[in-house]
């Protein structure tokens, strides 16, 4: 420990002590958050409605996996919440049926199970969110999950889900999720299974996002610093949805994940020629 370090530490602590608790503004009021044990407090109506929603989703996913798809009628799932502090709330999940071609029944079952789980999670996330809406909310709330893209590259099949949720804020909350499968086995594939170095891929993706950002949106690298492709490093910034396509690795993220009070999708596709050096052996289109 050198002298300058001691002096700096002492000066910082002395300066920090000038700001005291009683000198701050009154504490902010946040909507109540749901504690882990509060699931039991959900009304019976919500529970029953959610169960019905799940059943519809399960039924719908069975149709989803019938190749080729003949009926493109969107599947709609609704549930309504009436609690003491939340206005009547309706969630809508719309699913245009994508054409998915598995190689055998086992593969289809694995893919179907993963998609069913994804949809159930999306419904659950929205149901959790609406419990935190302030009681002053009077309009009906809604969430919509759509299959944004179904694309194959080599042996890989990717299904991207785009969620737009109205949670009572000034603008919707957009989030994107993607599931990628190996069509030979039905196994779920992560980016870590495809690339040897996610940090390098992340750098390339950030550069592509910066280049493709819409005018008037986020400013520079600093706003992208929290974007990571490694789920274990992701904090409040949800990792972008990245999946292989014939044109390259396609990534999507909502601006609200990067800068507060913004929304709108940012899409970027990194051509494969920029990623060949980090592809794992055997991964190809």
């Amino acid at each position, binding site marked *: 420990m050198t002298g300058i370090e001691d002096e700096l530490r002492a000066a910082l602590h002395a*300066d920090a002590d000038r700001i005291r608790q009683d000198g701050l503004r009154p*504490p902010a*009021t946040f909507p109540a*958050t749901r504690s882990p044990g509060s699931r039991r407090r959900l009304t019976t109506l919500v529970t029953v409605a959610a169960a019905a929603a799940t059943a519809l989703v399960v039924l719908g996913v069975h149709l989803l996996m019938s190749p080729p798809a003949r009926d493109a009628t969107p599947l709609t799932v609704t549930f309504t919440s009436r609690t003491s502090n939340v206005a009547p709330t309706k969630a809508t999940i719309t699913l245009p049926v994508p054409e998915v071609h598995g190689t055998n029944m086992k593969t289809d079952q694995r893919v179907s199970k993963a998609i069913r789980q994804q949809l159930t999670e999306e419904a659950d996330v929205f149901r959790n969110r609406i419990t935190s809406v302030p009681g002053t909310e009077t309009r009906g709330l809604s969430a919509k999950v759509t299959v944004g893209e179904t694309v194959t590259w080599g042996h890989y099949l990717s299904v991207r889900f785009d969620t737009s949720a109205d949670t009572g804020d000034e603008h919707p909350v957009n989030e994107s999720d993607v599931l990628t499968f190996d069509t030979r086995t039905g196994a779920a594939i992560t980016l870590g299974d495809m690339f040897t170095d996610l940090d390098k891929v992340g750098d390339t993706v950030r550069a592509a996002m910066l280049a493709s950002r819409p005018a008037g949106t986020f400013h520079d690298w600093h*706003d992208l*610093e929290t974007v990571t492709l490694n789920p274990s490093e992701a904090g409040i910034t949800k990792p972008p949805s990245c999946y292989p396509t014939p044109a390259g690795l396609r990534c999507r993220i909502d601006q609200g994940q990067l800068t*507060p009070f913004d929304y709108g999708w940012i899409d970027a596709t990194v051509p494969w020629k920029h990623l060949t050096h980090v592809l794992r052996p055997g991964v190809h289109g």
Partner: protein
Amino acid sequence: MSLEGAGADALGWGRTEGGGAHTPRTAGGEAAEEQGIGSFAVLYRAERLTMVRLAAFLVDDPHVAEDVVQDAFTGLHAHWHRLRDQEAAVHYLRRAVVNKARSVLRRRRTARGYVWPTATPEPGADQGALMAEEHRRIRRALTGLPRRQREVLVLRYWSDLSEAQIAATLGISAGTVKSTASRGLKALEAALLRSST
């Protein structure tokens, strides 16, 4: 829901006054769940002051620092249900505060391009009693450092974070943290030397 009286101290989220690392103790976290108290409220109560102090070092204005921290908590609240590891919430919060402080400084630079510069407000009469002249010289020198050096030094010598924790907060490598801290200390010494001659 008012966040006052959440009993953060009793629940073991570490100190709520002064500097130092701010890692929630596991036993306290379990106690919070057992007592049915919203963990976000506990976090807010326990970390708000610390985060305001951190932000004040980065933006040099306590009022703006409060705005920065409020924005960071608001962002965290919006994502609270999707947070995979709520134990790491303090780390995420610290990172959000640093990022939002940078945004404020960027906007401030832009605004200064259009607004006639005004004199920096003189410190109040009570400032002298609270802060020694030597400390003020160090704070002034710190303010003159490049942004990243200032961030690293504040996180290292006020937040008492390790190099790895600083690296994770700022999104840089541990090696960069080490070299930046070294350069920052040298620059600080040089600035103090200049101011004393």
